[in-house]
């Protein structure tokens, strides 16, 4: 066990934007040094606001936070020296070349001369940008630009790296490459990484610990395996031919809950989600019960627990619904 102080600690962060709903409603967070921590949640859940506060960009209305041992409110300059930030849009200068972007970033942290040259060459090489180093960043592909963004965040060898949705908008190939790169980063240099994502698969694959964020606070936290393990049995998803309304819904929920081996039932419109000890064995009983209730079934699927189910269980909503039109999320996350 690590006995050192947390690399990131947030206590009861609250933030409300003028005219908006509450962005953070009591965010608590503790990240051990040298680990990758995933903040998982849909758009608007408060992940980015949390990152903005921890990176000294925004101030909370109340609450406190330390990063690398420095208080973000009292010593923002010390925090800034200790962190690297890769935001959703990191804004590499499009007119400048890759090398120029990195050199400027290094200079802002006080690097100069041969040390700066060496560090820039090292990063260009590591992120396979050496061939493109003399080209303006506006000509880079999405994957190259993202790699440049990450390199920018690492110029000064930070203790803590913030990756805010590092693969959003990347094609699948570039995303896999970025995952490999983040995986390597995590292994080296004793770097602490806070990763936010709305891809369940990404959090599952990269993070040692995950916190599910919903409506501005953390609803559950743990390792991906422990979170999935807490869900007993399998998930059974049924799609009905017609939506079930209020009274029918209560009736149906009661009927299904009474079946042997069935634990949790959530009926939402045409969707029925059930948790069962043995998914395969529960399906015939479920279908029979639905037939008795006069409800037609279009599809039935059985799945091992995924983070999607974790989200459903703790946030009380289906992940894809909250996240809107982003179909990739569900496709990436269900199985």
């Amino acid at each position: 066990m690590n006995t050192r102080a947390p690399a990131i600690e947030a206590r009861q962060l609250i933030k409300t934007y003028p005219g908006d709903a509450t962005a953070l409603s009591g965010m608590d967070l503790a990240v051990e040094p040298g680990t990758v921590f995933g903040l998982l949640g849909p758009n608007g859940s408060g992940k980015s606001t949390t990152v903005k506060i921890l990176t000294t960009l925004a101030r909370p209305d109340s609450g406190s936070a330390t990063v690398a041992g420095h208080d973000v409110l009292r010593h923002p300059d010390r925090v800034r020296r200790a962190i690297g930030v890769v935001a959703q849009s990191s804004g590499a200068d499009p007119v400048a070349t890759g090398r120029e972007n990195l050199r400027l970033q290094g200079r802002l942290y006080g690097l100069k001369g041969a040390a700066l040259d060496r560090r820039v060459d090292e990063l260009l090489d590591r992120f396979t940008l050496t061939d493109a180093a003399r080209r303006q960043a506006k000509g880079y592909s999405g994957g190259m630009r993202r790699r440049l963004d990450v390199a920018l965040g690492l110029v000064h060898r930070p203790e803590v790296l913030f990756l805010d949705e590092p693969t959003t908008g990347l094609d699948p190939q570039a995303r896999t490459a970025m995952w490999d790169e983040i995986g390597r980063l995590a292994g080296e240099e004793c770097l602490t990484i806070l990763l936010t994502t709305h891809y369940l698969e990404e959090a599952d694959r990269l993070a040692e610990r995950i916190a599910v964020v919903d409506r501005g606070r953390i609803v559950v936290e743990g390792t991906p395996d422990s979170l999935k393990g807490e869900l007993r049995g399998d998930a059974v998803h049924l799609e009905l031919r017609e939506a079930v309304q209020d009274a029918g819904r209560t009736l149906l929920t009661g009927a299904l809950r009474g079946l042997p081996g069935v634990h949790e039932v959530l009926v939402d419109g045409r969707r029925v989600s059930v948790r069962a000890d043995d998914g395969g064995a529960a399906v015939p009983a479920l279908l029979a019960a639905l037939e008795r209730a006069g409800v037609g079934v279009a599809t039935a699927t059985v799945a091992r627990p995924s983070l999607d189910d974790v989200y459903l269980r703790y946030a009380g909503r289906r992940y894809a619904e909250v996240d809107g039109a982003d179909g990739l999320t569900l496709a990436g996350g269900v199985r």
Partner: protein
Amino acid sequence: MSTAVSQTWYMTQRQLMVFVRQPAYAIITLIQPVIWLFLFGNLFKEVVELGGFGTTSYLDYLVPGVVVMSALSSNMWAGMTTLDEIQRGTLNRFLTTPVSRAALMNGNVVNNGLVTALQSVIIVLLGLLGGADYPGGIGGIAVLVLASVLLGTVFGALSNALGMLVRERESIIGINTFLLLPLTFLSSAFMAPSQMPSWMRHIADFNPLNWAMVAGRSAMSADPDRGVVLGRGGALLALAVAAVWLSIRTFRSYQRSV
């Protein structure tokens, strides 16, 4: 070099690069004043005969007017660049580094100042090519260039502050379109003060654009009035310092809204 100065220089370099590497943008910035010089020079050629211009050639009178007007019209769009940088995430990236907030804004100011100075010198040279006469010599021209840089700084800083506060292109476009012509025509850019209706002349006295023109013209005349040059120049300097201070303060309000 102290950190703040070197950081300001890095930020300036970064912006100058945009100017140098986007020739279309650079050329438009430099060509527009030529069109003003040519159009107004020909359109109002005869007006000099009305008297009160202190010269017999309208071009002599027009050059400082166009220099200052161009300083205004190129700097008042500075907020658009800032807005781009906000939307691209560049500003946030810098704000999470230890770079000083003043260096971020001053990089803008120095860059805009250099571009304005270059633009002003080119207009003066074009005027010379067209036969304009500058009895005040190099010193007078330097005062005009400095005054236009200060004026540009005032409006550049205000435009940046506006960009960070409203964060809408439309607002900047709206305000600029609304301001450019009235500010120009409520000054001595094209017309001698003695030929202006008296109410206009009184308004012009409070117009910073006019301060820059009056200071520049006086310095460029055969017989400069030090009091006028220092008075108007000092007022511009004070205004520029206030505007830059305000724009640096705006970072705080920007950070409250991110």
